[in-house]
């Protein structure tokens, strides 16, 4: 397995075409806007090295029998699925943001089982190719970006009906040695911090849309790849010189990157689906299911940090003993642990696939994610309620150190006499960061739309819940239908 330092060295060595704020970025790792997200990914390596966390962060490879980072693992049991959720909670706690490596893990497991079933039906050899790719990933402990969401153009039209066919990534040329693809994937969180990209189709496809049914892997620095860094609320605070207090989370952060595939060549050994429209739904649903499970771990870990920050600020400001404050913190815990319970439940109810790896219970994973679209917002609302309004009106850290007004700013920013003003300042900035600053991108909006917007889960819930069975239960109880169970005298 790689150390965190080896991972950082890898990132420095992989040169890519990246743009941010209208300029080309040559050294992304040491760029102050980007570095917090690289640090978050590095923690997935660091904790695998640490004996205090290694038990949850590592697994035994089903392919090679070697010890591997769990982020490269193909789940072999419901216990593996549970440990995945626990690992994500742990990382969320340690980084307070999206640590980016889950999407690849979810893609591995979805592609592994789907390619197996695809080969069974079509006599293709995608699974064999994918196993070889996975061995390479595990052996080299690679970070892989699972890549699904297309630009999507006119949302009322399917990929084949779009005015611009590139609105959804597709095959533009088939050659003897491989394929050429064009398109754009949006919202790619871990993209520029990864070694490889694993691309999947965005949605269900129909006849005539075979060119959009494509799954493949390319290295981050493949020719034709262009990356454009997304803006975040408060992002330029990371560029300010000084103590970093105003950033809130001083080491870690998330990011989103527009990823353009500008006629990228993919050799056949890296192609895992090429025109099999009948398996696009399976691949999308399995990936989405795994990723909806993931949110029952990672968002809970970040929630733990926000609950901790809320408890701390209540203490610092002298409000901790108020009964309504205590009750609101209990409510935050209740909401957070409910999300965790959903993550654990869909894992414990996991089942074996034909390929041998384990798939979460899709209904419970969708229930998990549906709750994730709501509860973090309520947790954030309660945090803001308890914190008070100063976290959105507090002066800049530079004003606290100003030679003329600094002492006055500090004097009027004081709370409990035994609590340093700077402690209150730091904690309020962290709450700001998580609930409406840069980290709110991950904790709130990503909770809403990541792994599918709320309606996507409601469609799946409608499909997976047997309502007729429930109707019959009621009809038997009230006598609309005969109940043959009651056959005693």
């Amino acid at each position, binding site marked *: 397995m790689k150390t965190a330092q080896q991972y950082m060295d890898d990132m420095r060595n992989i040169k890519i075409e990246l743009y941010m704020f209208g300029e080309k970025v040559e050294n992304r790792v040491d760029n102050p806007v980007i570095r917090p997200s690289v640090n978050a990914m590095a923690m997935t390596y660091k904790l695998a090295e640490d004996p*205090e*966390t290694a*038990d*949850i*962060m590592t697994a035994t490879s089903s392919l090679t029998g070697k010890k591997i980072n769990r982020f490269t693992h193909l789940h072999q049991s419901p216990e593996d699925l549970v440990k995945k959720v*626990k690992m994500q*909670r*742990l990382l969320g706690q340690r980084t307070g943001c999206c640590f980016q490596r889950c999407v690849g893990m979810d893609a591995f497991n979805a592609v592994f089982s789907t390619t197996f079933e695809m080969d069974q039906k079509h006599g293709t050899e995608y699974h064999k190719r994918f196993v070889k790719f996975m061995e390479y990933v595990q052996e080299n402990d690679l970070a892989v970006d699972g890549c699904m969401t297309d630009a999507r153009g006119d949302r009322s039209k399917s990929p084949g009906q779009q005015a611009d066919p590139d609105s959804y990534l597709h095959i533009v040329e088939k050659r003897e040695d491989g394929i050429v693809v064009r398109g754009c994937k949006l919202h790619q969180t871990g993209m520029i911090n990864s070694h490889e990209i694993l691309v999947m189709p965005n949605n269900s496809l129909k006849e005539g849309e075979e060119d959009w049914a494509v799954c493949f892997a390319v290295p981050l620095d493949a020719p034709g790849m262009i990356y454009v860094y997304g803006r975040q609320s408060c992002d330029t605070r990371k560029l300010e010189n000084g103590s970093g207090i105003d950033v809130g989370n001083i080491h870690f952060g998330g990011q989103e990157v527009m990823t353009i595939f500008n006629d990228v060549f993919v050799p056949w050994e890296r192609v895992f689906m090429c025109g099999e429209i009948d398996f696009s739904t399976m691949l999308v649903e399995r990936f989405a299911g795994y990723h909806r499970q993931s949110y029952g771990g990672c968002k809970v870990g970040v929630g733990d940090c926000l609950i901790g920050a809320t408890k701390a600020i209540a203490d610092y400001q002298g409000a901790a003993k108020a009964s309504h404050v205590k009750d609101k913190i209990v409510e935050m815990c209740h909401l957070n642990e409910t999300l965790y319970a959903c993550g654990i439940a869909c894992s414990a109810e996991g089942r074996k696939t034909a390929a041998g790896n384990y798939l979460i219970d899709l209904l419970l994973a969708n229930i998990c994610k549906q709750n994730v679209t709501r509860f973090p917002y309520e947790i954030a609302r309660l945090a803001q309620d308890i914190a008070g309004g100063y976290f959105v009106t507090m002066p800049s850290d530079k004003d606290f150190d100003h030679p003329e007004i600094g002492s006055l700013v500090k004097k009027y920013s004081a709370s409990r006499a035994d609590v340093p003003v700077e402690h209150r300042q730091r904690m309020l900035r962290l709450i700001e960061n998580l609930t409406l600053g840069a980290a709110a991108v991950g904790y709130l909006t990503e909770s809403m739309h990541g792994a599918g917007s709320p309606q996507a889960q409601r469609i799946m819930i409608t499909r997976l819940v047997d309502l007729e069975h429930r109707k019959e239960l009621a009809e038997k109880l009230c006598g609309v239908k005969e109940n043959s169970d009651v056959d005693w005298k």
Partner: protein
Amino acid sequence: MRLMIKYCGGCNPIIKRKELAETVLTELRKKNDVELVSESADIALVVGGCPVCCVDLQPIRDQAEELFIVGGNLVNFIQVDKEQLPDQIISGIEEKLRRKEVNRIEKLARVL
């Protein structure tokens, strides 16, 4: 004594695992000759952060003659006060060692 210490992943701990293990180790070393090992141990001290203690025990069983399991405030599945944890663990491990030594002597006596 050859002692192995194994932690759970620590996703939701209710105790400070490393601090606890270090206290236990320090105290044990005051009265015993303790060698910290990663295989072929006399005893493996498994420190889980919560009562679930989801550590995979099978590989540890292969590397240690006896297991001593702490899961949050449970010591070998018995609930104890958190303040009592170090004392309970130390006395438990020492008791296991004593029993092991008695068994060894009895076995030797039978052979002789």
